[in-house]
């Protein structure tokens, strides 16, 4: 698996001045599925988008910036922003059955593997 698009650049379609981050990910492989965990703190569950096109899995999530009224930021170590990351899958995955759940700011994706079609035998006929 590789992720060629982890530049952390601003998303092209993000109209507002909100940075886009590459969420750190854990990836596990089991017999039936690939399980991915992504840290997306602050992400709005309704703003999570998972798309699989051919073998490129794109995950994006949006968050609403937190700006308390009558307060000023005295010290900041993180910024609110959107998340975006793309992965190239090496296994055949059933795009229809991808399961995505979000809990405590962690997005968990379960990508069920498609059952491999039995190898076709090609008989070689003597000429």
């Amino acid at each position, binding site marked *: 698996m590789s992720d060629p698009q982890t530049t952390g650049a601003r998303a092209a379609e993000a109209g507002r001045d909100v940075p886009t981050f590459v969420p750190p990910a854990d990836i596990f492989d089991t017999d039936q599925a690939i*399980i991915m965990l992504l840290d997306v703190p602050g992400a709005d569950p309704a703003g999570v988008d998972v798309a699989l096109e051919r073998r490129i899995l794109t995950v994006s999530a949006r968050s609403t910036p937190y700006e*308390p009224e009558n*307060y000023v930021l005295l010290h900041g*170590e993180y910024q609110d922003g959107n998340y975006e990351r793309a992965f190239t899958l090496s296994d055949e995955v059933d795009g229809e059955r991808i399961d995505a759940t979000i809990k405590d*700011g962690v997005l968990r994706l379960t990508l069920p593997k498609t059952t491999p079609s039995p190898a076709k035998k090609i008989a070689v006929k003597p000429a």
Partner: protein
Amino acid sequence: MTMLMEYAGGNGRWPDLFRNMRHSQEEMSRLLGGLRLVPQAEFPPVNVWTGADGAIITAEIPGVSPDQLDITVHGNTVTLRGKRDPESVANTANTIRQERAFGDFTRTVVLPFRVDPDNVAARFERGIVFVELPRPAADKPRHIKVARA
């Protein structure tokens, strides 16, 4: 966190820079196949907001359940202590990539004023903890009317 005071009155320029630095560091270590040449930035990252009524501390702690987080307030010092457990995945699973860290963490924030420990409220939402720290009524800045002699 002694660096807090140095940025008092900052307009958000420094934090931005640090965030970018941290992210490029993480990118770099990812490119090197997870070999961490650069020490991981302190966990969790915190933002400190101040106003006339007090302070709000927010921290990004995705994957930490609220009962695994302990917040203590003493005078002007706030400590976040907790534990981030690894997510449960089938035992037979092979790890392909591991970028998320887990384990114990502690962060201490020193505020420029005392807070009222009895009225501290914490809320946990979408992997972010929001700690509201009001100033004691007696400590709040008072407006002094200036009268002409």
